[in-house]
């Protein structure tokens, strides 16, 4: 009976607590999803069990696309996230390589500086930064976000890529250099192809952070049609009348979906990316 004892042990020690965690961590998503799929009137129907859908409808999603600026928010978020991610990755590849491989005056200082920059929170900077954005006349333009997001992304991405570049054996680079390759050629033709997992982690990290960012987008994009998804949903979909819940939850589900999807595909990369900074130091 050893087998069944072990099974019941596993049930008690692993699966039961796991179910508790899954319920706790996933319930809000479940709730958002079912509310988005029922007619809002059903929410008021006290005889209905609120944890289940009585009448299924896609009306809330249709409303979102036809009667709100949601499609534009999606477009804005996508443009800002993609351009800012590319820009940040470019900067981080260069900085990460320089910190990993090159000895130059101030490299130690810059390494620490980049680490500290990672710890500077947006709430410390947003008021003066609003002033800078106003002076540069960037309010309600994509550039306001494309240029400010990298301050949150480059530090961590450089740090991450620096770690990856260091794992590439020096000998490969040295032999390429003996063959007459320049440093830049080595970086582009040898180091980058060998660092695809690192680039993927850094890219997903950057894209997710851009997609999720709230404070800068809230302040720099005040015009309705220029908002990003999180800001547009939070500030324009909550209305004075009470019938907004369905479309609000539909928007929250749709806005969460891309990063959830992206992440599920690359779970391993993302996990290593997320933890690399903390574990590798």
């Amino acid at each position, binding site marked *: 009976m050893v087998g069944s004892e072990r099974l019941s042990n596993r049930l008690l020690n692993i699966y039961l607590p796991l179910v508790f965690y899954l319920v706790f961590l996933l319930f809000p998503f479940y709730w958002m999803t079912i509310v988005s799929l029922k007619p809002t009137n059903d929410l008021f129907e006290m005889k209905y069990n609120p944890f289940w859908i009585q009448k299924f409808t896609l009306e809330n999603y249709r409303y979102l696309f036809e009667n709100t600026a949601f499609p534009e928010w999606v477009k804005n978020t996508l443009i800002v996230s993609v351009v800012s991610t590319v820009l940040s990755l470019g900067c*981080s590849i260069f900085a990460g390589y320089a910190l990993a491989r090159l000895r130059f005056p101030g490299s130690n200082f810059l390494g620490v500086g980049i680490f500290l920059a990672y710890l500077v929170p947006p709430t410390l900077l947003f*008021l003066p930064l609003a*002033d800078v954005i106003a002076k540069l006349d960037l309010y309600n333009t994509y550039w306001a976000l494309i240029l400010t997001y990298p301050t949150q992304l480059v530090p961590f991405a450089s740090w991450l890529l620096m770690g990856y570049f260091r794992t590439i054996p020096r000998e490969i680079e040295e032999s390429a250099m003996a063959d007459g390759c*320049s440093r830049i050629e080595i970086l582009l033709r040898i180091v980058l192809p060998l660092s695809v997992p690192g680039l993927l982690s850094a890219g997903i990290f950057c894209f997710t952070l851009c997609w999720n960012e709230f404070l800068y987008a809230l302040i720099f994009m005040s015009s309705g049609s220029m908002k990003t998804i*999180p800001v547009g949903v939070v500030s324009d979909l909550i209305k004075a009348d009470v019938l907004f819940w369905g479309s609000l939850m539909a928007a*929250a589900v749709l806005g969460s979906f891309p990063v959830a999807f992206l992440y599920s595909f690359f779970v391993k990369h993302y996990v290593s990316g997320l933890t690399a900074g903390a574990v590798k130091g």
Partner: protein
Amino acid sequence: MGRSKGEMRGGAVTTGSLLERESSLGIILMLPGALLLMVFMAYPFFLGIWLSITDSMIGQMGHYIGLRNFKDLLTDTIFHQTARNTLIYAMVTVPFKAGLGLGLALILNNRMRLSNPVRAAVMMPWIVPTALSTLGWFMILDPVFSPISWLLRHFGLISKNINFLGDPNLAISSVCLANIWRGTPFFGITILAGLQAVPHELHEAAAIDGAGMWHRFQHVTVPHIKGVILIASLLSIIWTFADFQLIYVLTKGGPANETHIFGTYAYQIGLSATEIGMGAAIALYMFPILSVFAVILLVYLRREE
């Protein structure tokens, strides 16, 4: 050593030689990132210090007033409340996140079926846009539509719905709950990475020596993951201390300022009330506290290396 071909050929500084010399190439490669960080991080930081010692309003540069903003805040009861709330919000939630995260990591560290989808699922609170998942909490904690209230009413435990976000005594606990929910996966996955770095042989050796599960946990596992838990806690404190969106979405600092934290109060004073100088001072009050945690983290990481 260190002298590049270009230099030896005659010293003409060409683009080619700048890109070959290690020291100049290093600086050139750092430039794009450094430039962005200078313009949009370092400069605003110093501008913020300047704003905080002026009576500036939005769109109108003010006059130098010394430390008056900082002094005024010391006698501002809402600011006191804000400081207290921020401490609770950042410090009280950490042991919960660390404890729940440790439990989660210990579970996920077991071999099980579907482990990748399970890992992806439990990470969701941490990776989806916080503003949007917080809307889910906004409804879960709603005075009319809360499913928690519905359940408790259904089982006859309460007769009236609970006003999670509107009751001044409950509001801070409610936002802490949402924060714990959001932060637990980060601890879980970070500690899991630490657990997986524990050499398997150590566990086996201890088991052969007759050490029980609890004993092995205490003497093999804990020493290996202490560092990771400390790092995760410091990062979490820094992030939570400087949070904004979760509170903004749930309560905007209300009711009666019971949930204002530095970020939301700075936003309210600096942008909504347009006193950008005073707002900058509120935000800067975070700086010394954040620096302490950042320095501890830095020192610890350097020592580890």
